[in-house]
């Protein structure tokens, strides 16, 4: 290759000016790697152009005054940003965490209170039922007392018989409304499979008439039973009979018996 002719062609001046195609640039670059005198030529052209263009500049701007501008675009933006939002976002997060905590606490409190209120409400309802029961009981007891105190009432004590001498009962008989009130407090609970049966008796001849069995004896609280009795009874007896009752009283199991005071 004719280096001198290549240099004289003026291609290297255009290379420095930046007017060659990409392909030509690549070719020149390859040659510069091979021929040091070509590289030297390029460096000299470049120096001449750098000096010429520099003389056109009315003044220089030193790097230090320029650097500030570079720092401004590079570093400052990065530096400034995190500072401000940090404060606000930390405060914001803290506030929202506090608020959430507060809300949860309040909600929890509210649920607890509602639960307590529910318990109190249930207790109140229970107590109301108890009061109602007590009222009913009191009314029933009053009725009973009124019934027993009636001036037309006839009291018939029933004494224990034979082996059952320790038992007793009382009959309050209101002839006006054909009702007897049997106070059987002195009888034991009927054993399993047995039931108390109440009898109205006429004496001459001895004729028993069943007034019925007391099926709820064991569960009754005050052991006072109202029983209809339209008979002209001369005596009352109570026997222990098999469940369901008997047509005739089992005299072996006669617990109590009482004679009605001779009718006035």
């Amino acid at each position: 290759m004719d280096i001198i002719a290549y240099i004289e062609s003026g291609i290297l001046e255009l290379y420095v000016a930046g007017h060659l195609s990409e392909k030509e640039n690549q070719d020149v670059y390859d040659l510069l790697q091979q021929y040091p005198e070509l590289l030297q030529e390029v460096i000299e052209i470049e120096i001449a152009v750098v000096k010429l263009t520099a003389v056109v500049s009315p003044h220089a701007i030193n790097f230090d005054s320029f650097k500030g501008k570079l720092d401004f675009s590079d570093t400052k933006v990065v530096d400034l940003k995190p500072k401000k939002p940090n404060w606000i976002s930390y405060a914001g997060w803290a506030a929202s965490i506090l608020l959430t905590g507060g809300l949860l606490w309040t909600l929890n409190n509210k649920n607890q209170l509602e639960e307590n209120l529910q318990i109190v409400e249930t207790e109140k309802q229970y107590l109301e039922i108890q009061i109602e029961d007590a009222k009913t009981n009191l009314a029933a007891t009053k009725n009973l007392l009124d019934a027993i105190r009636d001036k037309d009432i006839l009291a018939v004590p029933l004494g224990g018989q034979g082996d059952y001498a320790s038992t007793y009962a009382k009959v309050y008989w209101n002839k006006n409304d054909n009702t007897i009130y049997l106070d059987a407090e002195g009888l034991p609970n009927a054993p399993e499979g047995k039931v108390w049966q109440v009898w109205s008796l006429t004496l001459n001849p001895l004729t028993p008439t069943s007034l019925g069995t007391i099926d709820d004896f064991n569960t009754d609280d005050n052991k006072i039973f109202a029983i209809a009795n339209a008979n002209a009874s001369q005596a009352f007896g109570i026997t222990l009979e098999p469940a369901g009752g008997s047509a005739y009283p089992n005299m072996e199991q006669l617990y109590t018996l009482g004679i009605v005071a001779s009718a006035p």
Partner: protein
Amino acid sequence: MTDLETLVKQFQNKDQVAFEKLYDMYSKSIHGVVYNIVKDSDIADELMQDVFIKAWNKADTYSSKKGRFFTWILNIARNTAIDKTRSKTYKQSKQNLNADFFVDIIKSNDNLDASTDAIGIKKFVTNLGQKCKEVIELLYFKGFTQKEASEELQMPIGTIKTRNRSCIQQLRDIVL
């Protein structure tokens, strides 16, 4: 690897010291090229700094296989300055642009430092033939291609190339 290549490599790796050296080597030239296009000292100051910021930010796009580092940054400078002259605000403020060539600027430049280069170049351009002034102006300052310069100056392409070679040769004789 030459010193310049090493420096450019360091610059591409975001070495600020290397960047400062390259800035010191070329900033005045870039300022001159930009100033010759926009003809305004303040705008030229701003644009020259923009050019170096651009170079810093896209340093990784430069490759020595595509050309000289100076040529690369010279291209950025011409494009940046020409973009500026096309902007609306620039056109409004610069309606009566004087048509001074770099030669006229150098001749009227009172701030030239007392270096022998500056004095020599001033003397050089004063005696420079009209054809040389025009070719150097178009090819180096204005970024005209060989073909564009040939049309502008109504000269064959080959003549542009050889004339340019001899003009730059004269310059080299003075500054080297």
